[in-house]
């Protein structure tokens, strides 16, 4: 059994996109170590509701690390202190009795705050809509070996496809760049025969959309890959650059 801990939460509260936000402190008492971070916030919200206060707004859905909705910046790290884990996969046993835990929303011009800890990540949907798909109808599931794909390419594509579109890469980036996300979404298709056909159009359209939406340019600082809950590698960014330059040169 994990020990129970008591600690102080410093949470960013902001009523709307245009309102001024501020940190509010909440004292949490006797929280069991096997409570997940989001369950801990649920406990706090229940208390707030019982006290007739506004509960803290935060994004979440699957709570098992696959949907990409949860998005908290905890003690200086997107998705908190663990590597290769989303916020919903963080448990309170990672923290010490008496800690002060600071919780902030993603902060980047591309992701404006909607309320409290919830930010608007629709920019990612727009980038996907610009070209992150294969435009032919592929029909039913084909026979496994009908189209031979080298193991190395399949593995790389699979690693890129692990991206859950959470936006932690943007939240971590000093340039507010979405390159890790875009590179993962370009790579997961570009490496496979079904995606290769439209590769040039895709990479140009997605990158143009990313620029248009005001995300920054990559300076290879690598904060994104260190904070990505799915450990997406910046080698995908090299591939994105390579494909974009190639597409532009062949125009």
């Amino acid at each position: 059994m994990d020990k129970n801990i008591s600690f102080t939460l410093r949470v960013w509260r902001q009523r709307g996109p245009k309102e001024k936000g501020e940190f509010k402190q909440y004292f949490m008492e006797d929280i069991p170590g096997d409570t997940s971070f989001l369950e801990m916030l649920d406990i706090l919200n229940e208390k707030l509701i019982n006290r007739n206060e506004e509960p803290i707004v935060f994004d979440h859905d699957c709570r098992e690390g696959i949907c990409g909705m949860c998005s908290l910046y905890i003690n200086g790290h997107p998705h908190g202190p663990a590597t290769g884990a989303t916020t919903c996969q963080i448990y309170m046993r990672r923290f010490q009795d008496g800690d002060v835990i600071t919780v902030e929303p993603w902060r980047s011009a591309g992701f404006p705050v909607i309320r409290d800890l919830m930010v608007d990540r629709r920019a990612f949907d727009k980038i996907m809509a610009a070209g992150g798909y294969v435009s032919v109808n592929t029909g039913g599931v084909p026979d496994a070996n009908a189209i031979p794909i080298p193991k190395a390419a399949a593995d790389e594509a699979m690693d890129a496809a692990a991206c859950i579109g959470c936006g932690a890469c943007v939240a971590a980036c000093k340039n507010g760049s979405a390159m890790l996300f875009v590179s993962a979404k370009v790579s997961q298709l570009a490496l496979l025969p079904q995606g290769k056909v439209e590769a040039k159009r895709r990479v140009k359209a997605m990158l143009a959309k990313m620029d248009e939406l005001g995300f920054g340019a990559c300076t290879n600082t690598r904060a994104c890959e260190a904070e990505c809950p799915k450990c997406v590698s910046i080698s995908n960014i090299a591939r994105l650059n390579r494909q974009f330059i190639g597409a532009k040169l062949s125009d």
Partner: protein
Amino acid sequence: MWLFNSSVGKKVVMSITGLGLVLFLTFHMTMNCVALFSAEGYRFICEFLGANWYAIVGTIGLALLMVIHIAYATWLTLSNKKARGNERYAVTARPKGVEFASRNMFVLGLIVFLGLVLHLCNFWAKMQLVELRGGIPEDGVDLIRYTFSKWYFVLLYLIWFGAIWFHLTHGFWSAIQTIGMSNRKWFVRWKWIGYIFVTLLMLGFVGVVVTFFCYETFHWPFLASIFGGLA
């Protein structure tokens, strides 16, 4: 045009101009080292790169590389700041794998630029510029001996070399990543190649400055014999 209006295009310009400057530094370092072995040889290089048409074309090309690199650096840095937004995190942590240099490329670049201004005043303004105006340039070997007999110039140059080293330990692999010539395997290799190459490059510059400083300050006889014919 994608080199002006796309984020990757702008970075490609940074990368190519940066790599051009690295190539120039490599030649520059090699020529400096000649001064360690032969004053005559060094004087020959100075004459060769005086006010001749090819040296002038080279100088203009180099100035262009520098101007474009700095202009794009400023442009990118400002637009990246804007993309980041005005709200700052209250708590920040530097994640594993993020180098100091990569977070401070612009500041390092500014130090590099200031060092460059000093360097141009120390040497270029007294050599090629004088010759271009029809005067007689100062002797290259004498200029080296004079400049690096002053401890404050030595100190400033060493700080300058340190800034270039930091700028390039990140800049080298970053430039290659930017033009897409990297992957999981080569990332590690390029990083090693970059660190080793840039360290040797900067040691070459440091070596010349320190050797001349010791020679002028302590008059160690064994140094005079390396230089041959200096004294």
